[in-house]
């Protein structure tokens, strides 16, 4: 019998784990806060804790980045500042992975800001208590008691931590666990919307069932890879066999490059395993055959969560996808890699096509953004196709060892993907942040839920120019118009595809972008050029009494964030601009004052009972932010512009990330 005392505790590199430990640890602390902090102080405590943890993680990532660069540029013989392989690869801190951690943290901070905003109506996007059955007496009681679902903050932290681990591990079983750590909180968060609760709960169920299915495919792939890995890694220490992809691939590659052959049929086993794993990942990315959940879940989930989910999950999943493809391709025969690549190309084409074509006919803003996210998944996958090719004079040749005079494409992929993820993520969080502020209003002036119907957005530009400008900027960035971040990003991924020899794929991508431009511009036209519904009605009937189109919440928006510096200027500017603008100049309408502003803040409103048809006819109103969301939107807008005008700042960093190929 082996003795327990013979166990040697593994050496853990705590420094490398710091970002993860901060985020997940604070999540646990957040759970304790739920138990011990009195209800009044809980929300504030949670928000502060969450933001502090994410900021701390960002700092830690920055420090680690410096250490990692020192290590990578170190002279041979110099002592390494940081061992990137923690615990034998359980955590594998390549610069790529670390960059992904940084991006996820940034997006999470922005996302949490949007989540934390209660807007001038005094209510956030979440149900007072998600456990209450919609429409019951208990729900009314919960609303009157002013309950807040503060558990969302620790859940967000867990999700963010899971994503960070997901993007930076080499071990497939850890990746599986991280996949669940990031998914489970998101499933729950999807079901917590304040309005249209059944829709939200169904979205959660759908997301959950399909997500569980995808993760089951993923883990079966891992099992097959384990079956293959054991065969090639074997020998020496039997404990070393596992599902560390890099080890498995290197072992397989050793056999291949020494002219040996793998045991009969095992190459197919490996391929099948990798394909299943990739399918699991593509589901999270939202690429086409596995995209069915995206529109419904994005529509049903509370909007701030949708923003966070769309941006950060995609970042984590794409980075994991690149790493898995790269590492797996490393250990495969060249022709197998080419087949795999072809499959990825097909998926990229399909995804771009479906995303742009179906997206073009959507009339619901959230659905439109969901399809846009599918299209972006397509562009990202386009950037990924170069994962394992060596280029020889423009033509992609097989993989294996790069002979002289050839370049490995991976650096292009890394640079392109990282930049794209940041640009897309920032625009997405910002766009969904804007959506949270544009609301429906019932006939008696009560502010309801988000006005997701595009018809209600008509003429928004007149009423809230700043907000509209920000939204238009995000859309333009998503469309890839020059001078925005999206342009540089798209250029990056397409050039990565070209470098991999798939120039025609890049051309298709550009075509898809052009179509996509049409559908983004359509939204901008609706917001800016089209007269609002009220104006149209007034003009048609010659009726003078046009309802007030001002901004009820502007007063609260002004007073909401006195202390938050530059951001608050934007915050108050956005809604206030809408109020200053004359409401309906066309017919000299009598503009009634908007006393509902204060009223709306004080009263807590329930489910919206208005029929959809009525909502379509009325205009959306913009509610004032209480600060955080406006700060987030302003930051996103600023980032989109800065990334577009001075991409070199981030591109340099991304360049550093290519020093170490995944």
């Amino acid at each position, binding site marked *: *019998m*082996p003795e327990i005392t013979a*166990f*040697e*505790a*593994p050496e*853990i590199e705590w420094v490398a784990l710091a970002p993860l430990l901060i985020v*997940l640890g604070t*999540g646990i602390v957040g759970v304790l806060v*739920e138990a011990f902090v009195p209800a009044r102080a809980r929300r504030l405590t949670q928000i502060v804790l969450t933001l502090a943890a994410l900021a701390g993680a960002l700092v830690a990532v920055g420090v680690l980045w410096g250490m990692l660069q020192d290590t990578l540029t170190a002279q041979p013989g110099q002592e390494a500042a940081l061992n990137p392989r923690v*615990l034998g690869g*359980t*955590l594998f801190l390549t610069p790529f992975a670390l960059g992904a951690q940084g991006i996820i943290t940034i997006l999470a901070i922005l996302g949490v800001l949007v989540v934390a905003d209660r807007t001038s109506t005094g209510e956030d996007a979440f149900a007072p*208590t*998600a*456990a*209450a059955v919609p429409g019951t007496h*208990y729900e009314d*009681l*919960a609303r009157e*008691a002013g*309950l807040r*679902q503060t*558990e969302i903050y*620790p*859940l967000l932290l*867990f999700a963010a*931590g899971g994503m960070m*681990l997901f993007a930076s591990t080499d*071990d497939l*079983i*850890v990746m599986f*666990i991280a996949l*669940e*750590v990031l998914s*489970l*909180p998101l499933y*729950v968060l999807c*079901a*917590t919307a304040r309005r249209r609760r059944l829709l939200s709960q*169904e979205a959660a*169920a*759908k997301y959950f*069932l*399909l997500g569980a299915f995808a993760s089951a495919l993923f883990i079966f792939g891992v099992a*097959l890879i384990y*079956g*293959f890995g*054991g*065969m090639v890694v*074997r020998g020496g220490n*039997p*404990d070393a066999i596992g599902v560390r992809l890099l080890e498995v691939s290197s072992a397989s590659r050793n056999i291949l490059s020494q002219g040996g052959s793998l*045991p*009969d*049929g*095992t190459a*197919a*086993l490996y391929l*099948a395993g990798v394909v299943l794993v990739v399918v699991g990942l593509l589901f999270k990315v939202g690429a086409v055959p596995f995209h069915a959940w995206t529109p419904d879940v994005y529509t049903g989930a509370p909007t701030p969560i949708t923003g966070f989910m769309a941006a950060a999950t995609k970042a984590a999943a794409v980075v994991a996808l690149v790493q898995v493809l790269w590492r797996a391709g490393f250990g495969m025969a060249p022709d197998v890699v080419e087949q795999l690549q072809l499959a990825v190309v097909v998926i990229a084409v399909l995804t771009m096509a479906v995303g742009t074509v179906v997206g073009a006919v959507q009339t619901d803003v959230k659905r439109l953004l969901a399809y846009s996210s599918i299209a972006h998944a397509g562009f990202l996958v386009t950037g990924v196709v170069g994962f394992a090719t060596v280029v020889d004079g423009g033509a992609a040749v097989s993989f294996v060892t790069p002979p002289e005079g050839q370049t490995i494409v991976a650096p292009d992929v890394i640079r392109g993907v990282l930049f794209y993820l940041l640009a897309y993520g920032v625009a997405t969080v910002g766009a969904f942040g804007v959506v949270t502020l544009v609301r429906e209003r019932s006939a008696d002036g009560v502010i309801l839920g988000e006005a997701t119907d595009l018809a209600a957005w008509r003429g928004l530009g007149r009423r809230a120019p700043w907000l509209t400008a920000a939204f238009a900027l995000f859309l333009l960035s998503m469309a890839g118009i020059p001078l925005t971040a999206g342009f540089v990003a798209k250029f990056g991924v397409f050039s990565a595809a070209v470098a991999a020899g798939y120039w025609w794929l890049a051309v298709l991508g550009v075509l898809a972008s052009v179509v996509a431009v049409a559908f983004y511009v359509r939204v901008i036209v609706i917001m800016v050029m089209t007269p609002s519904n009220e104006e149209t009605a007034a003009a048609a009937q010659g009726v003078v009494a046009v309802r007030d189109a001002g901004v009820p919440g502007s007063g609260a928006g002004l007073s909401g964030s006195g202390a938050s510096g530059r951001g608050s200027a934007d915050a108050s500017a956005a809604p206030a601009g809408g109020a200053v603008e004359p409401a309906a100049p066309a017919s000299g309408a009598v503009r009634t004052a908007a006393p509902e502003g204060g009223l709306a803040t004080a009263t807590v409103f329930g489910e919206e009972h208005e029929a959809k048809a009525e909502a379509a006819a009325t205009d959306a109103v913009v509610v004032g932010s209480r600060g955080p969301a406006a700060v987030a939107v302003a930051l996103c807008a600023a980032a989109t512009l800065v990334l577009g005008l001075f991409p070199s700042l981030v591109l340099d960093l991304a360049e550093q990330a290519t020093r170490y190929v995944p």
Partner: protein
Amino acid sequence: MTPDMAAMTTTDGEAFLFWVLAPLMVLAALGLLFVRRAVHAALCLVFVMVSLAIMYIASGAPFLGVVQVVVYTGAVMMLFLFVLMLVGVDASDSLTETIRGQRWIGLLLGLGLAVVLIGVVSRATFLPGTPLTENQVANPVGLARILFGDYVLAMETVGVLLVTAAMGALVLTHRRRLETKRTQRWVAEQRVKALAEGGTLTPLPAPGVYAQSNAMDTPALGPDGRPLEHSVSRVLRIRGQEKAAPASLVETRSAGQVSTVPAATPDGGEDS
């Protein structure tokens, strides 16, 4: 029973076990696909899981076998059954239509997956490695070494996962008490308060129980011999399902008279 770990073949005993269990398991799994009631599907799944536990033990993983029984059949499937009871055992196909089912495509995809996977697996040649020793097999210490050695981070993360799961479930299902608790004292005080508005301190009288009509729907008779309407359940009264007290009893008494034993009537109405 020591499994023969040295080669790629099993002992005859294990082969027998396999060929008995495997077809049954596949049948039970197919039950999941074709059985109409969710409860039956759950029972099928329980059978598969227990069989799997047996197979694990036969394959040199006794610890996993035990965990399988405890975690899967003991906890997971019980949870499933519990939820089925909650939702209603008869709820066979009503819950949600989450996935648009193109039946045939689904069937084809499933078949295709099976064919591909089986093809891949059966073509692959596996070389036996160094067999596990008896000591390794019978002892969870080896597992613990790996668990807390290379996989310690995974272990910690799983901890986070479990916290997340507990918290998520609480968010979705835990309802905090928002009204004051109804203690006996509270109820008593409410009754006394209600007295002023014509409430009663005591519980309502029980309905009359007579030999000819079996209670509940027939009012009791008050001391004055008149039927007490409120002794019958309110629901029955609203539905109009209450019956009159036996005419013989009501009629034989005049107001104020409290006699008890009536003469035997042809109706057979008797106090019991």
